[in-house]
């Protein structure tokens, strides 16, 4: 069990995170917040790149800083900016990282092709990464995070640069892996976690706003989400009068979704809230009451 115990992180007078308390058991956790909310700071503390100013992070009861390499050998980490050696091939780079992770060369040589196949890079495993696209590099990053079969997998914006097919494949992969490990996945893209996360963690105002299953989060807006259609010429008036959380075009009309405690008009239908509604409402209009 991984516990973030009342952790704060300050940079001089700047507060990056304040009094964060979280508990992680096996499963997938989606850390959902807009950029700059403190997701990466929390991630970096979880992987010991930075240290809490207050509080501590414990794994099975022991401070992860004191655990040192015993903790890090359980870690798989994909940073937001995944660096690589341009003149290395994915196979060679993963072999190097395997050595850093304490994996024997023999074991690594067996595992690397499997992982590269898993992320769809088996055809280019011996090609230098210099000419790889952003998505290909990201897939190398995913493969390296899985090298040591980590008990704690921390992924910071893992789908950045991936196309829709790769995203779907990635989500499937995470679901397969989630059985006996903690997976913490930070993103600002709701669809990345909507279908796979056991719980969603939302950070706002430098602290944890929610840590709940998706269903419970959606219940917070239950009966308060309305949807209606409006003509294009009325769209601007509509936007001014109501706090819309999303809008889309459909059959030559604008479809608006918005939050309201009362039904503004009987023609407007109440709809089931989605995680995206919650996200947009929380970060677009302020915290839920």
């Amino acid at each position, binding site marked *: 069990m991984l516990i973030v115990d009342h952790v704060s992180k300050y940079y001089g007078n700047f507060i990056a995170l304040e009094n964060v308390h979280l508990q992680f058991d096996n499963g997938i956790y989606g850390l959902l917040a807009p950029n700059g909310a403190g997701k990466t700071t929390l991630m970096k503390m979880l992987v*010991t790149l930075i240290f809490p100013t207050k509080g501590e992070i414990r794994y099975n009861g022991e401070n992860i800083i004191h655990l040192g390499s015993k903790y890090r050998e359980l870690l798989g980490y994909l940073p937001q900016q995944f660096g690589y050696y341009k003149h290395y091939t994915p196979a060679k780079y993963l072999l190097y990282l395997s050595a850093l992770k304490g994996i024997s060369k023999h074991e690594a040589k067996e595992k690397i092709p499997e992982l590269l196949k898993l992320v769809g890079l088996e055809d280019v495993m011996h090609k230098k990464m210099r000419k790889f696209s952003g998505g290909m590099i990201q897939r190398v990053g995913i493969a390296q995070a899985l090298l040591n079969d980590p008990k704690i997998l921390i992924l910071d914006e893992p789908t950045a640069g991936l196309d829709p097919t790769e995203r779907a494949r990635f989500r499937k992969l995470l679901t397969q892996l989630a059985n006996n490990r903690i997976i913490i996945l930070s993103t600002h893209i709701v669809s990345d976690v909507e279908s796979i996360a056991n719980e969603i963690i939302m950070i706002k105002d430098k602290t944890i706003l929610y840590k709940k299953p998706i269903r419970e989060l959606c219940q917070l807006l239950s009966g308060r989400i309305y949807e209606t259609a409006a003509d294009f010429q009325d769209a601007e008036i509509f936007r001014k009068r109501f706090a819309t959380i999303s809008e889309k075009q459909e059959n030559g009309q604008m479809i608006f979704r918005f939050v309201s405690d009362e039904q503004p008009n009987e023609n407007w239908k109440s709809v089931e809230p989605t995680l995206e509604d919650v996200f947009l409402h929380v970060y677009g209009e302020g915290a839920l009451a």
Partner: protein
Amino acid sequence: MIKYELIKVVKSPIFIILLLFFVALNGLIIFDHKNERENLPVLQNIVEQYGTKIDDEALAGMKKEIDHEMVWVNELNPKSGKQYQFPYEFIKGHEAFLYQHLTDRELNRLFNLNLFTQYYETAKSVDDIYSELDATEFARQQIKKYGLSGEAEETVLNQANLLEKRLQQLVKNGEHRHFFYLGSVYEMHSLLFKKLGRAIAFEGMILVVLITALLTNYEFEHRTFFVAFTSKRGRNLLWDKLAASVIANVCAVMLLIAATLIIYFSVYDYSNLLFVPISSYFNSETPFPYISWWNLSFLQYVCLFVGCLLLSQLLYMLLTFSLSIWLKNSYLVFFTFALFAGVSLWLPSVVSLNSNFILIMHVNPFYLIMNPHVWFMGNNIFTMFPYFEAVTIAAWAVIFILLGFFSMYKFKRQPLN
């Protein structure tokens, strides 16, 4: 892990190119004055025939050979009607004749005989020269030249007393009475230990700083530190990088030294001179001859010289390692290192000349490589201490090792963003 770190150096072509460039540069230094040293084989002939040690038997044999050759010299120009005892007397009076009437072969024979005579005359006068040598007087001249006074002057004069004792021991051992390439003519000691020694030291320094900075900063400059330092090896990876730096730097510096020395000893033949004491009078290039603190042969001196060069480079490596931990950028490290070296060399010039502080200021790893030709010798008043090199290296090794440990301690607690 060390193997993987070493691969990073080997795969950087800049080091191979730099190494080759430096070796070529040293080759140029070696070949630069080769023509002025074309008569060096004369000494080899002397040593082969009479040995390296100057004794009465060798001197008598040489005189006999000169007398025999002078018969031939006196027959070269019978019209002059004079009988010369030594070739330089003949040469002095026959400048025009030599080039008009003698063949190249005869000229060569005559000049070689003249050089042979010079070795003979020098060998004959060695004892007289050493009986008049005064280490204290030498120290006084140097003190006056550099303007030392007070405490500093007193310390240097005390050291001069030590040197005087060593001089007496040297004379007693007969270290000065050995044939070697004439320093006053060829300056071989300066060529090898000063010009080349200093060049190697600076070239090595550049290589060492670049290699160490590259290895230590590699993960930061490739943005791979997020993954590397969160792996099982974690921040201890820097110890592997330090170990790899030691191996890579020792290899690079030893290759540079070995290649340079191979070229040097292929061009200049020292085969019969390896066991000649470095304090031989023939080696001297100034009125006050080189006096090593211990009885060292040329070969032993070369080995100590190589060892000292290598250790000084390892000091630079340790400093670069610590700078890299703090700065995390190779360019910044290189310029900070240069600044550090510049300040270390400049500081002694602004320190008061009347306190021992001026001497202490010279105990720095950068001043050390400025005068490699007087390592282990009492010929420089600022370094006139028997263990100057050992103390400088040991003291700074302790300082840099402690700095390294402190830097690592801080690094392990440093946020990596």
